[in-house]
């Protein structure tokens, strides 16, 4: 192992100890480099409706409306499934995932992701 790689690994270990995994993070995710983003669904809106994320991050949608909603990719590539009131679902960001999404039940509800590569 090179000295540089060794230092990087030690730094990652320290960061992991100092900032424990978020409860929403998936097991095995690179804790030091990824984040969990929350999108609230309320009043028939996704908030925020534009979200900057990185590959490996987790996005958690939480529905606060009485009406059930979904977060569904515009071309159907990913989908949270039905979220009843106060339910939540998470999806891990991948490089090739669709960035436009909507509520499959209320198609006028739309939102957008902006994905950057993990190393950037």
């Amino acid at each position, binding site marked *: 192992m090179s000295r540089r790689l060794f230092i990087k690994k030690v730094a990652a270990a320290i960061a992991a100890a100092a900032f424990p995994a978020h409860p929403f993070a998936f097991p095995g995710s690179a804790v030091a480099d990824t984040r969990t983003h929350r999108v609230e669904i309320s009043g028939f809106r996704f908030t925020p409706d534009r979200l900057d994320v990185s590959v490996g991050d987790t996005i958690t949608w939480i529905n606060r409306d*009485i*009406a059930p909603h979904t977060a569904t990719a515009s071309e159907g590539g990913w989908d949270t499934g039905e979220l009843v009131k106060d339910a939540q679902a998470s999806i891990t960001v991948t490089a090739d995932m669709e960035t436009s999404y909507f509520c499959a*039940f209320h198609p006028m509800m739309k939102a957008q992701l902006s994905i950057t590569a993990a190393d950037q």
Partner: protein
Amino acid sequence: MKQKLLLAVSMLALALQATPAAAQSPADLNDLQIAHVAYVADNIDIRYAHLALAISENPAIHEFARTMIRDHTAVNEQALALLKKLNAQPQDNFLSKQLTANSEKLVDEMSQLRGAAFDKRYAENELAYHKAVNDLVSNAFIPNIENAEVKSLFEAGLKIFKAHEHHAEMMVKAVSK
């Protein structure tokens, strides 16, 4: 004869005094009567949606109808849970009876239609129905509801019904092309 008539009029007057005047305006309804109107209005739209699922062959109409069933059922579940919490029973009234009677006629009318004619009538009725209900909820119900939790539920419901109105506008445009 005259004495009998006077006696009958006096007894009627006493009966009217003994019974509180029935509300004849939406603004006069109490919280439990308003809750019942909303419950009935939700069920009417669910009934229209089931009719659409049975008659229409348009996938967009089916999708819209399923959303109406899903959302109005969710609102009714919240309303029933709140009434249970408040240990209250909804009260039938002139407006809930009027809504039900009107819906019977409309279901009969729409049941005779098929194809594009049904889709157009269903979408137009959904738009008109949600506009009317939203007007009622905004202007007659919410300003007069006394219980804070009931008011909060109606405010949340209004957001849903306004979204439905917007969705119905899109449906009307789509089936009118």
